């Protein structure tokens, strides 16, 4: 048994009265891929921030190769051989790949060793299949390539331990395979890897061992993830059994949302080309596809922030004419955005403000230009209670809430007004099993009530569980639509690459 690469002993860290980590032990051996599991708020991120030097622990110690070390900044962590790939990348978009690699590591003379950098980049690329064009600006890279660059950056600086915080959340299924083979190759060379993820099937496929956190403490360890069931791991994470919701039969009514020959100009991202689809009352329609195939434009048109060049849209039988968010909302559209923080909520203002934002002008929350603060507060408080949103109160800064709670808040704000159509993008991205389950149940409730739901997603298994029909988008078109009874991951995957047309 080789010496442990890294060992954290008895780490405790509190924020005020909240103990984010309590007496947590964790270790990684060279060549080992450790899965770090836990629901949102279980303390995974805090623990990794302690390891990476962003927080000082209140108690406990960190040993690297048996030696106690003090890590009080990310520079210390890098020097100690710890590299971290955050969920949100830390790259300079206007600089090239090579320049991003060389930031902060110019020689003592102040000169930049470009040739040496190119050599190392090529070498790392060969070893692990992590190839990148050194002269491309980061802004031209796909999300997957940016992630690759972050990994290369860590290796470039001599990381012996690599921490990846939910790396697959931003990747398409095909990219995940590439990431996994690179990680396996690195582990084979003796690197230690900590892999944080909610996706248990990925954890089971990749990791050698798992540490599970719950409420800031170690809830258990899994020594043989490949032969442990997802259900058993989920139970460790949540402390109770998780049963996937059952989608009962439903009899869809008339169409509540129709798109007829919608095309958009190539303003930003992929344009829509002659998209026609219909969502019926009491039906969940999935939109599958590799990201960047027009899903964003589709969501923007339906949300009323982009005017199509051609085609027609109706909501609840009414023709949409102005394509403004206010118009589509008045016709009965609810919207759960892909990016909660940028297009959904206002992180610096109280949660209550975000919860009433789309309807602030309605009689429920204001009259004659004056706000009704009591009504706003009461509404927020009622929703916090009804959806079990964990926060100190409606006046808490929205940004202080965890992703799962924010998603619940967004759901609460839309569902409170009984939308006729709901458009949802990546509904459970970054959420833990418990929160995802809750969100799914709510969708099925709405479906039973006769709401038409359109779910844009990349997680095919989620779509198959949730949706009655699944349409596949490819290069701005609807490549085909399948009843979910006829759909399989393999078949959808094939359609997503444009190989099979079907309708």
């Amino acid at each position, binding site marked *: 048994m080789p010496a442990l690469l890294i060992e954290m002993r008895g780490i405790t860290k509190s*924020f005020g009265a909240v103990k984010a980590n309590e007496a947590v032990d964790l270790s990684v051996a060279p060549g080992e891929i450790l899965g770090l599991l836990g629901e949102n708020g279980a303390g995974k991120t805090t623990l990794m921030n302690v390891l990476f030097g962003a927080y000082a622990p209140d108690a406990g110690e960190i040993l690297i190769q048996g030696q106690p070390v*003090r890590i009080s900044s990310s520079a210390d962590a890098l020097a100690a051989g710890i590299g971290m790939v955050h969920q949100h990348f830390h790259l300079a978009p206007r600089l090239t790949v090579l320049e991003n690699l060389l930031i902060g590591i110019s020689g003592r003379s102040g000169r930049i060793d470009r040739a040496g950098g190119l050599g190392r980049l090529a070498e790392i690329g060969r070893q692990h299949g992590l190839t990148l064009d050194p002269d491309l600006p980061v802004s031209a890279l796909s999300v997957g390539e940016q992630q690759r660059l972050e990994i290369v950056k860590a290796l470039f600086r001599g990381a012996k331990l690599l921490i990846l915080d939910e790396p697959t959340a931003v990747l398409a299924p095909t990219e995940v395979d590439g990431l996994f083979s690179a990680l396996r190759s690195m582990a084979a060379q003796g690197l230690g890897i900590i892999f944080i993820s909610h996706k248990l099937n990925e954890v089971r496929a990749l990791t050698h061992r798992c540490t599970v956190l719950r409420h800031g403490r170690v809830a258990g360890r899994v020594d043989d993830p490949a032969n442990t069931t997802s259900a058993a791991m989920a139970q460790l994470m949540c402390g109770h059994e998780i049963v996937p919701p059952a989608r009962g039969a439903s009899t869809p009514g008339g169409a509540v949302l129709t798109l007829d020959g919608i095309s958009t100009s190539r303003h930003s991202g992929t344009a829509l080309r002659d998209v026609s689809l219909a969502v019926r009352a009491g039906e969940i329609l999935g939109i599958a596809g590799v990201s960047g195939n027009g899903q964003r434009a589709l969501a923007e048109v339906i949300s009323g922030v982009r005017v199509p060049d051609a085609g027609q849209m109706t909501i609840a039988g009414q023709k949409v004419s102005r394509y403004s968010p206010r118009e589509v909302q008045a016709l009965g559209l609810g919207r759960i955005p892909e990016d909660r923080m*940028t297009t959904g*909520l206002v992180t610096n203002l109280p949660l209550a403000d975000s919860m009433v934002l789309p309807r*602030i002008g309605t009689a429920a929350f204001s009259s004659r*230009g004056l706000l009704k603060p009591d009504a706003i507060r009461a509404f927020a408080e009622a929703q916090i209670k009804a959806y079990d949103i964990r926060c100190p109160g409606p006046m808490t800064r929205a940004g*202080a809430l965890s992703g799962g709670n924010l998603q619940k808040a967004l759901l609460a704000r839309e569902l409170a007004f009984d939308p006729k159509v709901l458009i949802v993008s990546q509904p459970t991205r970054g959420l833990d099993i418990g929160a995802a389950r809750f969100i799914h149940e709510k969708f099925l409730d709405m479906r039973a009530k006769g709401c038409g739901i359109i779910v844009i997603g990349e997680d095919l298994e989620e779509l198959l569980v949730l949706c009655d029909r699944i349409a596949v988008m490819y290069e701005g078109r609807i490549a085909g639509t399948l009843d979910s009874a006829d759909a399989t991951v393999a078949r959808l995957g094939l359609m997503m690459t444009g190989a099979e047309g079907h309708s």
Partner: protein
Amino acid sequence: MFRLEVRVSTPAWFNLALPLLAIAATLVLCSGLIALAGAGVIEAYGVMFTASLGDSYAITETMVRAAPMIFTGLAVAVAFRAKFWNIGAEGQLLAGAVASCFVGAIPMSGPLAMLLMAVAGAAAGAAVALAPATLRVKFKVDDVVSSLLLNSVIYYALMALIEGPWKDSFSGYPISPPIEDSANFPVLLEGTRLHLGVVVALLAAPLIWFLIVRTTLGFRIRVTGENPEAARYGGIHVERVLISTALLSGALAGLAGVGEVGGVHFQVMSDISPGYGYSGIVVAMLARLNPLGVVPAAIFLAAVMTGAEAMSRATGVPAFLSDVIQGTALLAMLVALLFTAYRIRRVGVAR
């Protein structure tokens, strides 16, 4: 060893403690300059205090100076809430002064003249602010630069007016003709310069607070400032909100000019504002963009300005110290704002 750590939440008492801390730090830092000028620090600050807040007359003088900075402070606070970076309160103030002076020189009944002066001044300020806002909304022109540079345009336009066609024919100096006596704002306390405009300024602060906190326009301003994308998706017409904010901000800055013409100078001259528009930025920052906080912040800066002159006479320290204090206060407040997002933590040595 110390380090900065991200804060999860900011305690409420910080809103009061931070400006006070910034002011204390400013006074400590500037005491070095006083000592350098060869005066006693305690004595100098003592004179400054008595001359600005020591007796009722001094207080009225400080309030007269605070009034324009309350208006410009509110103008900046409102604009910054929407992240409309209005650095142009100075030019808007001057425009308001010119417009109100034109109106005030027309013979009519006193109250009507005062009302029309206020309307004209506010409209002129709003019109000036509309330019950078329109450029930003239509052409994405940086509002910091355009609103700042517009100050010089307005200033030299004013100079051209009072050096040229609008020059007072009686005195021959580069000053405008005076407004009608009946348009002079009434003095509220016999023997002082405390005029009606000061009261209006004090009333404006709670009104603007109400607008920001309790109206849908205020809600839209706040949301647009914090996250324009979420605002747009939420059905808020972001461009319209920015234009409304600019008009409101410009009108407030214009009212600062109205008060100076109607209550203090009764005409327009080149130095009608000793930089009240720029001081408004300091005031708004010290107030943490809270309209109610603007009043004490403006009174503080006004006290420094009034006090600095007396201190200069008594101790020989140049009155420019007041500018240094203003600048230092802004920097100290910006540093203090760091503590709303971070806290300092002592890092213990690991065993």
